[in-house]
Every structure is written in C-alpha cells, then in structure tokens.
C-alpha cells in the first residue's frame, strides 16, 4: 500500500507523528479503512489524548467501587446484593447543530452505557448551559436551542421510560454558540449480574443487535474526503436521529438475553460505532475479533467498509455469546422483534480483522489501537484572569431579592421539568425542586439513592481549581441536606481548546481541584467524559467541570425545602459565612445587579464543609429537621425565599448578627451553609457543638411573609405570594 497524501491524513485529524506511529504499529502503510479506524480511536473524544495524563490524578478507588473508569459506566456497591451503574456524558456539539435530535441521542447514548452493564436505568438528570435568551442578536436562536434540547430529552427519556428527576440549567453569553448538554444516567443491577464489555473465548460468535447501520454521523474527516461529491456530502448527515422505541426494546431484550447466561460480554455502539466496540471489547479481553461486514445489517445500499466501520447509527449493541448457545440469545431478540446477526468470531491473535466480501480490509492489533493512542502533555500556563473589582453600586435588598428570584439562573425551571416524566417507575421520592438532591428509591433493598449535579462556570472561570472544589462540595452538601452520605462521583469536563496553554491550564487546575476535593470527601470518580474545543466565536466557554455525585440513604419520607409549620426555629447551619468585595465577584448578585464578573469565587474551607455536612446528616438521622435547603446561588435571601414557596406559604422573620454590608449579607454565596427549620433547636445546637460548627438561630417561621433584619434593622420585608409568582412565572416569560 502507498502512503496517504498529507492532506488526507490532516483531514483525519491525525498529525504526521501520529501517522508515523500508525505505520510503525502496522509495519506498513494503513489502508483507507484503517486510517479511518485509527482516526476515530485516536480522536480526542475516544482517546482523551489531551486530558489522560491529568485524569490519572483523580481518585478512582474506594471501598464501594466495583468498577472504576474504563468501562461503559462506573459501578458502586449499595449493599443488599445490589449495585448501581452511573455516568455523565456530553452531547454538546450535536445539540448545537440539531438541538432536538442532538439532545435525544445524547440521552440514548448514556442509557445504553448503563444497560450494557446489565443495569436497568432508573434515573436521568441533565446539566444544561445556554446563551442568554434575551440577547437581541442571539436570543431567538438560543430560545430555539433551549426548546429543542428540552423537547429532545423529554422525547427520548419519556418514551424509553426512565424518569428525568432533576438537573440544572444556567445561562451565560459564553454558551451562545456552544450550548452544553450533559446527561447523567443511573441504573440498578444485582451484584452478581453485572456485565462487562469484554470479549473472551476463541471461537465464540460476535453478534450484532438492534438498529441497522446507515451512513449516520460518519465523522467530518470522511465528509471532507475527495471521493464524495457535494451532493453526497449533503446527504451524509453528521446528526443522527434517535429511536427511543427501538432503545426500549433493546433494553428489555438485552436484560432478558443476559439472564440466559449465554452472553460473555456486551458493549453498545456509541461514538465510532462498530470500530470502537470491536476493538475495545477485544482489547479488554486480550483477544482478537474478526468480522465480515457483509453480515452487518445495513439500512442503505452500497456502503463502503470505511462507512460501515465508522457509522454512528444509534440503538445498536455488540455482544459475544457462548458458542453453541447462540439460539438462546436469538430467541430473546426475536421475541422483541429485533434483528440479531452473527457478524464475526473471537480469535486468539489479538487482532481486529475486518473483511468485506471476504477480503481483509483492515487488520490492526487491538491493544495498540485501543491503548497506545497518542498521549500529550500539552503546555499549560495560567488561566485567564478576571477584571478588577468594579465600583459597586448600592442595591437595596428590598428591591434586589425579587430581581434575583426572577432571573434566569435562579427562577423555577418548572417549564423545563414538567416536560419530563419524572415519576415513571414509581421510585421518585423527591423529584425536581422539592429537595436539593433528587432521590430515587430502590424497591428491592429499602435503600434510596440521592443524586446531585453541579458545576459553576463563573466560579471556575475565576479559579478553575477552586471552582471544581466548590462543585464537589456543593454536590456533597446537596446530598447531605437530604440526609444522604456521598459515595461516588462522575464528571463531565467541558472546556475550550486545549491547544491554547491558558485553556489547558484551566483544565489541569480544575482536574487537580476536583481530585483534591473528591479524595477529601471520599467520593472517587468512577467514570465520565471530557469535552474539549467548546468555543463561541473563537473564545472558549467558561471552564465548566460538571460533577454528578451519588449518595445513599434509607428510604423514608424526604426532608424537603419548604418550611412546614409556623413557630419553628430557623437555624443557619454553618453560620453567616465570610465574604469581601473580591469574593463577591462570582455571585448571582454580581451577574444580575452589577453585571460583571471579577475577583475570586467564594472561599471554601474543606474541613469546615465536611463538619457541616456530618452535622446535617446527623440532624436528619435524628429526625430533627422539618425542612432543609443549602445556600447557593443568591445566598441567604434567595434560600430563605425558596423555603417559603411551599404549598402552605410559610415564611420567616430572621435577624442576623453580622458586620457585612446589607446586600453582601443577603446575597453572598459562601459555601458550607444550610438553612433548616426545627422544633428542637437545643438538640440541633448540641449536634452543632459536637461537630464544632456555628449554628445560630437566626429567626422563626411565620405565616405569609418574609422579613430579613440585620441587628434589628429591617433590610427587606415581602409578601410571599408576589415573590412566589415572580419566581414561578419568570422562566416562561423569558422563553417566549
């Protein structure tokens, strides 16, 4: 074979060095199909070549970790003979190109990652970022993207039958041309019934199941190739259409087929489709896989080996069955009306061998292809710095609270989550906006799983290291606020172009901060996803590390956000907290009132954070909290308002003893603080003392109103009804 032209290599996004490495591995020039295979396996998306070096810094082991990174999803032991499988993944770029299908297939992909491990998905959450909806230039497009993404998630999740139980949604101009759609999914499985994406057993059949292969999503490299005409390019969409009904059948059929005991290993075909699944299953099992492309079910005619190997058609799985027991597997797939085809066989030689019409079109050693992808230590300098402290106008607390409550980031997202079925499977103990963390029960064990997603781009821009730590702390605090003990984490790292040293610095610092905090809270990272090159008009997005942390608790009536009764003591667990002008620059007050970003994120003391969380869990375990809500976006005043928005509209009169300026007192966002109401303030005080944290009684719950005083001087007083209406209706008015 002759060498490929430099432009063909470049179109495959391979460098000259990478190409030389391919030639060295093969001992010859690669065929065109092989070039395509290497280009997807060694892409940033599949190989993590820019981030791998630093991802190694993350803690991945723990007492409860059954499976860490490297499989389709992480697995954690939750006791009682059951495990959970979970992961978060991004679908940012496809969601910009085609919001509805991009988001829908994002949900489909992560669900397959879960059930390929043998786990039935029981919860989805999503973390979304969009550009500003009211921007005169980009607002209309951003609203369309938002509407499409939400409808796409709803379409796929609702039809599939998995509840979307929570998430977050934030708006910043930096996401104008690059929305973030990060989807988290979690499933449950008996401990001894976990499946792995590992091939084994020479002579075992390799079986393809699910949707047929079309020319979907074949990567940009192929589209640029000279052999396609313009018209053909038009017809080759980079965006796939999801089929949630097919996925639902695939779920049921796979779980049923797994129970036959005839399946050796199984993997979904996600990014890089057939290429990735064959080579990774072979590599993990240290075996070879040989397939004949003629036997791959195809939706279109005349597909080339290159196209079949690189197609990203959705709703497909690859499995290895025990030789002689194929019929047991086929019977199950027939029952569910699904196509299953034997396309190859496991071999001993460790090679991925691909035939087309009987002729070998690719022959690559699996291990080198999967594990010897390039690794880059990209130069990293310092993250970009924010501006200096601006002149800070005085904004009265009285006027500011309604403004913040109706701002996009803070207001109720009911418009979004009512489009999701958040109850199907009847496990949702706490769905959207009822608690700080979503709670789903495990019917089989009497245990519940609490889940929280968090990532604050503003904080992370001001300090990637501190921002990542704050996200970990916030997730863990959300879990503790419902009484759950954090046990493990997954991450989605959304960053700009890693070839720019200041962006690479953001990535490195965020990973290091995350590593420190995850180690500290004993929440190992069991998997996740890195999404790089996220940019709007050549400018990177805010570094946006999104954490998904899961915790466990005993199944019971949840402690929710709203105050329940009047006359209860209102306690600010963790105290008033500290802030100054520098630390005020990342807050929602800075965003909505000052309209700037400056300084540093709020200061986090990990030790104190942990003690507050321990105390909180103890308070809930002893049944002392009637309500609980952590302070985050918008600080004390916003949290207090949200606690008052329950069906009974019970508010509070609080009086805070503090030297802070009024607006800083009301709206600063120092972490490690939780607002609770209790009938037993003395018992709570005793627990706080034991954990050496401040827990001032700041007030008392009252009917109908909210009032905030600072050393007896009233900063603001509000009727709950009006605030609640502003909070509840704001989003819809922004979306219109």
């Amino acid at each position, binding site marked *: 074979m002759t060498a490929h032209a430099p432009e063909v290599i470049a179109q495959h996004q391979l460098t000259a060095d990478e190409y030389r490495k391919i030639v060295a591995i093969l001992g010859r020039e690669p065929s065109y199909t092989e070039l395509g295979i290497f280009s997807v396996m060694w892409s940033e998306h599949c190989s993590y070549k820019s981030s791998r070096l630093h991802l190694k810094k993350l803690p991945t082991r723990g007492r409860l970790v059954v499976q860490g990174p490297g499989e389709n999803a992480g697995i954690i032991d939750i006791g009682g003979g059951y495990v959970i499988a979970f992961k978060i993944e991004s679908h940012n770029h496809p969601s910009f190109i*085609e919001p509805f299908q991009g988001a829908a297939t994002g949900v489909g992909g992560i669900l397959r990652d879960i059930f390929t491990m043998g786990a039935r998905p029981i919860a989805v959450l999503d973390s979304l970022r969009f550009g500003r909806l009211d921007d005169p230039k980009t607002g209309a497009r951003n609203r369309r993207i938002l509407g499409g993404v939400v409808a796409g998630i709803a379409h796929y999740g609702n039809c599939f039958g998995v509840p979307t139980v929570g998430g977050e949604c934030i708006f910043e101009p930096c996401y104008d041309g690059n929305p973030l759609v990060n989807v988290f999914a979690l499933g449950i499985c008996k401990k001894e019934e976990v499946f792995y994406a590992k091939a084994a057993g020479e002579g075992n059949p390799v079986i393809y199941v699910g949707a047929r292969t*079309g020319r*979907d999503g074949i990567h940009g490299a192929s589209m640029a190739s000279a052999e396609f005409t313009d018209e053909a390019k038009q017809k080759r*969409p980079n965006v796939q259409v999801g089929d949630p009904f097919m996925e639902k059948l695939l779920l049921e059929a796979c779980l049923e087929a797994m129970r036959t005991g005839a399946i050796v290993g199984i993997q979904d075909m996600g990014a890089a489709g057939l290429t990735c699944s064959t080579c990774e299953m072979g590599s993990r099992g240290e075996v070879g896989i040989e397939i004949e492309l003629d036997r791959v079910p195809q939706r*279109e005619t005349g597909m080339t080996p290159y196209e079949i190997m690189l197609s990203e058609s959705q709703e497909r799985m690859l499995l290895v069955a025990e030789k002689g027991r194929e019929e047991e597997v086929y019977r199950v797939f027939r029952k569910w009306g699904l196509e299953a085809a034997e396309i190859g066989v496991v071999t001993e030689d460790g090679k991925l061998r691909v035939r087309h019409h009987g002729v070998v079109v690719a022959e690559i050693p699996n291990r080198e292809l999967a594990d010897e992808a390039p690794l880059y230590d990209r130069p990293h300098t310092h993250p970009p710095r924010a501006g200096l402290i601006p002149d800070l106008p005085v904004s009265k607390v009285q006027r500011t609270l309604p403004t913040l409550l109706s701002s996009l980031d803070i207001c109720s997202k009911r418009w979004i989550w009512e489009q999701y079925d958040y109850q199907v499977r009847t496990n949702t103990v706490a769905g959207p906006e009822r608690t700080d963390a979503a709670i789903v029960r495990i019917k089989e064990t009497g245990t519940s799983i609490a889940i929280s997603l968090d990532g604050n781009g503003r904080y992370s821009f001001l300090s990637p290291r501190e921002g990542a730590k704050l996200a970990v702390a916030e997730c863990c605090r959300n879990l503790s606020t419902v009484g759950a003990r954090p046990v493990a984490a997954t991450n989605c790292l959304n960053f700009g172009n890693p070839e720019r040293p200041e962006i690479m610095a953001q990535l490195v610092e965020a990973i290091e901060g995350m590593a420190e905090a995850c180690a500290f809270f004993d929440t190992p990272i069991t998997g996740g996803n890195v999404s790089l090159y996220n940019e709007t008009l050549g400018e990177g997005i805010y570094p946006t590390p999104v954490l998904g942390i899961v915790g466990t608790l005993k199944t019971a009536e949840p402690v929710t956000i709203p105050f329940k009764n009047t006359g209860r003591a209102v306690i600010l667990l963790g105290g008033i907290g500290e802030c100054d002008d520098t630390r005020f620059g990342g807050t929602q007050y800075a965003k909505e009132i000052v309209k700037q970003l400056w300084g540093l994120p709020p200061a986090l003391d990990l030790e104190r954070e942990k003690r507050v969380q321990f105390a909180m869990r103890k308070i809930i375990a002893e049944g002392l909290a009637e309500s609980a809500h952590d302070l985050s976006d918008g600080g004390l005043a916003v949290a207090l308002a949200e606690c008052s928005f329950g069906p009974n509209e019970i508010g509070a009169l609080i009086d805070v003893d503090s030297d802070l300026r009024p607006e800083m007192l009301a709206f600063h966002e120092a972490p490690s603080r939780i607002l609770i109401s209790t009938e037993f303030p003395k018992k709570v005080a005793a627990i706080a003392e034991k954990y050496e944290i401040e827990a001032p009684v700041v007030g008392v719950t009252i009917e109908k109103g909210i009032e905030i005083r600072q050393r007896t001087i009233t900063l603001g007083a509000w009727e709950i009804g009006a605030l609640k209406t502003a909070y509840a209706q704001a989003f819809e008015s922004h979306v219109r």
Partner: protein
Amino acid sequence: MKARVFVSYKSTVLDPQGQTVCAALRGLGHRTISDVRQGKVFDIAIADGVTREEAHKEIETIAHEILANPVIEEYRVEIVD
C-alpha cells in the same frame, strides 16, 4: 393561490416512525409494502396580489429556514392555484 410544502427526513436519515409503521403493516399481512417514510405537509394560503414567482421564492425561504432543518430533512414546494 396556495402553497404546499412537504417535509420529510432525507432518504439516508433513519425514520423511526416510518420504519415502525412499515413493520406493523407487514406484520398485519400487507406484504406488498417494502418501505414507509413519514413526513409533514404544510398548506399555506398566499395573500392576494402576490405573483407566482414571489410566492415561490418566499415559500422556498420559509421551507429552507424554518419548516425544514436542512441538516436532516428535505422538502418540496408546490404552488397550486
């Protein structure tokens, strides 16, 4: 004057609805059927006094920019009197 715009997935794009309907029809014994594609039809009334050319140009634009997503869909415009 009226315009009619047909929008459907491009022939190379998976059409889950068409596919499921096709499988169901075949399952019911309609063996003469080999494929089904599903789409949408928009019937648009044109204001009086607009020429055929103007209408066609305008509807083309609407079809391309709003009614269809050219990334995955194709469309056909018909002007009927």
